[in-house]
């Protein structure tokens, strides 16, 4: 939207394709019965989001998304889904329940509300060209910001990751000890 105001048709095509792929794979995640296909659809979602981030000149976040999210998190997901085994439930059997209708209505209302709020707050300024510097989104700028302005966020994020890793180990090791005690 913002980049395409430069009038480049190729950018438009890439943007529309990536946005459509994002939406379609998002719907596909919740509609597949087999969780393996849902995870694969989410990988497609993350890839199209990375393309959108590249279009928004955030190269570092796009690379981090592919490496961290699609590379590590989704691989972990696939491993766990393969370990847990095929549990194909039939969530769409028997027609849409009242919960399903209510959830779709609530999501639609939320979408309308978001569009209205953003539209009225931004006025006509949404289609103005954004002026950004050359180094926007580059690793240098993000690294410099992380080490100067947002040093606390940086350190706390590393602590959060450490706590998550410890939690993962504890959750994994505890049941093994219980199995050994039972055997």
């Amino acid at each position, binding site marked *: 939207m913002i980049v395409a105001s430069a009038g480049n048709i190729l950018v438009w095509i890439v943007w529309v394709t990536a946005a459509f792929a994002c939406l379609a794979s998002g719907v596909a995640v919740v509609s597949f019965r087999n969780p393996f296909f849902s995870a694969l659809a989410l990988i497609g979602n993350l890839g199209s989001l990375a393309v959108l981030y590249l279009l928004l000149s955030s190269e570092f*976040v796009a690379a981090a998304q592919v490496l961290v999210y699609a590379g590590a998190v989704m691989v972990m997901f696939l491993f*766990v889904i393969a370990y847990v085994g095929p549990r194909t439930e039939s969530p769409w059997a028997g027609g849409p329940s009242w919960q399903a209708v209510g959830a779709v209505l609530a999501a639609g209302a939320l979408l309308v509300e978001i569009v209205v709020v953003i539209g009225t707050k931004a006025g006509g300024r949404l289609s103005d060209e954004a002026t950004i510097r050359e180094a926007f989104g580059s690793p240098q700028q993000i690294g410099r910001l992380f080490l100067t*302005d947002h040093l606390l966020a940086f350190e706390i994020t590393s602590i959060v990751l450490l706590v998550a890793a410890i939690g993962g180990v504890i959750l994994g090791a505890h049941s093994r000890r219980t199995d050994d005690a039972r055997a």
Partner: protein
Amino acid sequence: MLLRRNPLIVLLSLEIMLNGANLALIAFSRRAGEPNGQIFALAVMAVAASEVVVGLGLVVAMNRKRIALDVDRMNALRG
């Protein structure tokens, strides 16, 4: 996320929501020329990765204890 019973699908839907928030963050950061939005998006990504680790650890532990993977039936905190 409210409609499916498999906790793995619930975690996947949570990832979609977090990615949606990330997209909004980065889009508005680009619009305003503020690089702080990207910093926040990276922090959101790290936090989302760690909660997926913990969530998947829970699922694996439940599978080991032969508990049914059904969020409607997991309504007690003990066990």
